[in-house]
């Protein structure tokens, strides 16, 4: 009986590992400034988000960058709502699109869920004026594993 239990637990673990999925990566048009992707497990009609990944770099443009916000969104009763938001990540000045960073914690979400990202960029002029702009919103839909981007440039909420 004990052995059977252990085997069942192992089988369940294998199923969990096997169902881990990563969304298609989304990057800016030049693959210069940012990329994002999400890792999740499907769990009987809902999704366990395990990693909200991002990375980025600068070259000739911004002085530094950060994630502006990352949102978990879900559709409840036909309406989209924000489930959770992480805002104003740490600032980075690295030039290479090097390591992936992970944000947030594991969260179990309903079937129609997606994760959206927006990155912020800060640049000063030689005259001392400084401007802050944002990336497109990148969007990772978990129910069909499709990724997209829209609303380039504006720091929308």
């Amino acid at each position, binding site marked *: 009986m004990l052995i059977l239990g252990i085997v069942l637990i192992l089988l369940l673990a294998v199923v969990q590992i096997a169902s881990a999925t990563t969304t*298609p*990566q989304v*990057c800016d*048009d*030049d*693959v*210069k400034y940012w*990329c994002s992707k999400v890792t999740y497990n499907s769990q009987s009609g809902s999704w366990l988000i395990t990693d909200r990944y991002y*990375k980025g*770099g600068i*070259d*000739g*443009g*911004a002085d530094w960058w*950060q994630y*502006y916000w990352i949102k978990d*969104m879900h559709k409840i009763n036909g*309406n*989209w*709502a*924000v489930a959770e938001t992480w805002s*104003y990540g740490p600032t980075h000045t690295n*030039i*290479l*699109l*090097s390591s992936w960073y992970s944000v947030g914690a594991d969260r179990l979400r309903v079937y129609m869920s997606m994760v959206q990202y927006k990155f*912020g*960029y*800060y*640049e*000063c*002029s*030689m*005259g001392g*004026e*400084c*401007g*802050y*702009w944002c990336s497109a919103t990148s*969007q990772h839909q978990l129910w069909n594993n499709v990724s*997209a*981007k*829209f*609303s*380039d*440039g*504006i*720091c*929308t*909420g």
Partner: protein
Amino acid sequence: MNKRTLTILSISLLFFVGIGILVVGKRKATATPLYDITIKEWPSFEMIYEVTTIDKTYTAKLTYKDSLHWRVDFLTDSTVPEAVGTWAEYDGKEIRSLDPFTGEITVNREMPSDGVYIPNEWLWPAYIPNRLIKSKGEIINESNGIATLTFTEYLSCDQDIHDYLQQEGQKPCTVGVDRVEVTVVKYRTDYDIPLSIVETIDGEEVRRITVTELTILD
């Protein structure tokens, strides 16, 4: 302290002051820009621009009153229909915007640092001066109030970027070999307002921004 010591000290002091003046002077001389980098105040204007990338096209309208008052409306989007009708406006203190999915108006009051929100990387008066100086851009043509500026950047290529380009149906880069991005910007010389931006990487066009309408209101 005798007279001889005083003389030596005075000469030494003069020598070091002289060296200091020379060094500071040389630094100032090497920092002299090749181009006029004066940041020109933008007038009020309305602009419609189209952005075409490898996989999508969208159009937007910018209504610019001054650096503290502007609004952007997204007019078309070939891949995310929900984005059409999205807008954002800035009043110098906060950005209000329409969330295309929730239908709610969100307000961002907090600026992450000193400065102002700008509508896009290329939509602020410092863009042209910064690209001339910080990106070591060159003006390759100037006539009839329109100038053409070009600058080159070297973008990295690792396995992730290689795989991403392949996933997107683009020509994958060679891991470990920098990609060469050339940007060509046409702009009005009276206000330094960009009119078109074309970016190519290793000779292939990746993004084209075209201002299709520009009406100066001032």
